[in-house]
């Protein structure tokens, strides 16, 4: 039996008889189950909200259809026309949680999840405001206890708790010279010991996570495999850190402190530092300032419109027996407001793009950031998806406006038949799968590179293994 296999077998025996491995697996299961329960509650809340919005949309359509069918006649059409038409295209765009949304709330709560699509509403007013839970004191005090928190922050602690004494105990007890006097290379011995930890410590933790996700989410095998792969890489990164620390530490206490310092630096301080750098280099745009600026542009369009006589706004000969002029004026006003709003948005978009570029680059600063980013992408709770929803919802608004303008041009009201054929519906397409995969692979590469870097340092240290016997 090779050094690798016999060491793995021996380490497995030691870990199981040490009496800590099973409690550690159990602790991780409890953490995952608790976080998944939290995640399920959040997902359920959001699904209920989305369902309620869509139900409201369907109810509105049913009501309008009924009004058209039962109340509007040729005689009263003029009276009903404007009011009915103005609210006829009452559509909603919603962003439903993804199949793996229980992984993390991520940035989903920082962005709107629904939009009111009405052709006669200015585009700065279509998105619902969402602050759900963010102002809740318990959320502020306890942080967001989701699976991402467990995986990004707590999993490393469990991996380090199970591997901090990879070789330091042998050194502390004076066993190292006797062990290394056997005809086996120190590198092979230590790699074998680390592999044993990977097999009996990290792999079971990943299996527990996948089991919990399988039971609590609707994710398919591909998504579960992606999570497993990413988390496995992350676990191996922390194992590599433990290995490196053990090449320097001469006592278990030193190794424990070294691992703890590594965790603090890489999982806690570095992400905070990275965010600080991003804030300094490319501060985020102020949402209140942006909202006010856009509102000002919408008001400017309204003020301009008030100064215009109807004849200047509506082409002569475009008589409106069915649709009142006020609605036509409103259509022209929102078109003008759209131009002004898009112009006003430009500097904010530039600012957001610059910040996003910094944040993307700073993902490479720590595997903890990369994992958080990867989990958010897998959970469909990332900022890119949320922003893309806004773009698509806005696109849908323009599409609905174009349809409404056709009706205006033809002075045609919606009919029961229009409702029966079905009004346009918002379908979120999301980012191209290729882009999503690239970003996910990039996150995986950052974690793998981090692990490789630690292993490279370990290799350099192991080129002169004499110190291990001291």
């Amino acid at each position, binding site marked *: 039996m090779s050094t690798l296999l*016999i060491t793995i077998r021996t380490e497995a*025996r030691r870990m199981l*008889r040490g009496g800590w491995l099973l409690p550690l697996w159990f602790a991780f299961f409890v953490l995952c189950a608790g976080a998944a329960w939290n995640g399920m509650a959040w997902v359920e809340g959001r699904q209920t909200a989305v369902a309620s919005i869509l139900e409201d949309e369907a109810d509105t359509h049913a009501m309008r259809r009924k009004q058209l069918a039962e109340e509007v006649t040729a005689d009263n059409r003029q009276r009903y026309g404007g009011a009915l038409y103005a609210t006829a295209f009452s559509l909603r765009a919603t962003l439903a949680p993804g199949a793996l949304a229980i992984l993390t709330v991520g940035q989903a709560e920082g962005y709107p999840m629904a939009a009111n699509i009405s052709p006669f509403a200015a585009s700065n007013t279509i998105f619902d405001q969402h602050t759900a839970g963010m102002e809740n004191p318990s959320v502020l005090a306890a942080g967001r206890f989701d699976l991402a928190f467990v995986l990004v922050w707590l999993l490393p602690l469990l991996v380090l708790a199970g591997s901090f004494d990879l070789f330091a105990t042998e050194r502390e007890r004076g*066993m190292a*010279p*006797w062990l290394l006097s*056997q005809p*086996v290379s120190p590198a092979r011995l230590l790699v074998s010991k680390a592999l044993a930890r990977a097999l009996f410590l990290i792999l079971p933790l990943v299996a527990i996570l996948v089991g919990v996700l399988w039971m609590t989410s609707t994710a398919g095998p591909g998504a579960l495999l992606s999570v497993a792969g990413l988390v496995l890489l992350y676990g191996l990164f922390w194992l590599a850190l433990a290995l490196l620390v053990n090449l320097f530490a001469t006592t278990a206490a030193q190794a424990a402190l070294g691992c703890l310092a590594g965790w603090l630096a890489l999982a806690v301080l570095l992400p905070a530092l990275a965010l600080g750098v991003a804030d300094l280099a490319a501060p985020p745009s102020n949402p209140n300032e942006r909202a006010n600026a856009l509102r000002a542009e919408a008001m400017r369009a309204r003020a301009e419109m008030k100064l215009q006589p109807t004849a200047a706004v509506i082409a002569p000969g475009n008589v409106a027996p069915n649709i009142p002029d006020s609605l036509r004026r409103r259509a022209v006003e929102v078109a003008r407001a759209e131009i002004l709003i898009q112009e006003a948005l430009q500097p904010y978009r530039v600012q957001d793009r610059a910040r996003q570029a910094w944040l993307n680059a700073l993902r490479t600063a720590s595997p903890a950031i990369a994992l958080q980013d990867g989990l958010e992408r897998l959970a469909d709770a990332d900022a890119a998806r949320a922003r893309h929803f806004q773009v698509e919802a806005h696109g849908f608004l323009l599409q609905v406006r174009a349809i409404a303008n056709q009706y205006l041009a033809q002075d045609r009201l919606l009919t029961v038949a229009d409702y029966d054929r079905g009004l346009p519906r918002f379908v979120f397409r999301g980012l191209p799968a290729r882009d999503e995969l690239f970003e996910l692979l990039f996150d995986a590469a950052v974690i793998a590179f981090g692990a490789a870097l630690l292993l490279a340092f370990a290799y350099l240290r192991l080129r002169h293994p004499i110190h291990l*016997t001291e």
Partner: protein
Amino acid sequence: MLHTQALTKYFGAHCALDNLDLHIAPGQIFCMLGANGAGKTTTIKLLLGFLTPTSGQAFVDGIDVALDPLGARQRILYLPEQVALYGELTGLENLDYFAGLAGVPERSQVRLRGWLEQAGMPAAAIDRRASGYSKGMRQKVAIALSIARAARALLLDEPTSGLDPQASAEFHRLLLCQRDAGAAVLMATHDLFRAREVATTIGLMRDGRLLRTIPAGDVTARELEQLYLEEMALVTNALPA
């Protein structure tokens, strides 16, 4: 089997070993005597490849340790002052692991038990966890490993320090068995009397230098003690008769 040629080791400006020439043939026991810091442990570490010589060479069975430390260790069994075992494993499992690391191919339960019993391990202790083993019992596991590996050279660093007289006597009996099996033994010790009993040759070391080699059969215990004290410059006059 064990051979050094002008072996020298400096730690900074401090000379830990100075031009050591040593030749230990199979079936010989060479005991190094000397105070702490005399260079005994440094010699052993150089032969194990744990240290790189400043100059000179160390050979095990003709293999240059600096060039092929693993090849050299394949032929050596090292016994430190404290043999540490994995406390979570039984004596038999420890032996299985260390023998496996050393590449011993046939490690059936029967053979492992046989080696342990041959080393004097009580049968009742073989399947007990090593965390409860005495120092003597841990050393027996090491001796069992030596038997399992059929080690051609033994490097012993104060192996009987801290052992009770009975355990010490038993250890030396086992050592003689290894010698009779053809092993070359280099032992660093402070125990002059045991050294004289088991050694073929005794070397007196001080300040990294081998001052004198003495055939063990040529001196009495008292003469050896006298020589030791003289060489260590601990006394200037002979002890009274």
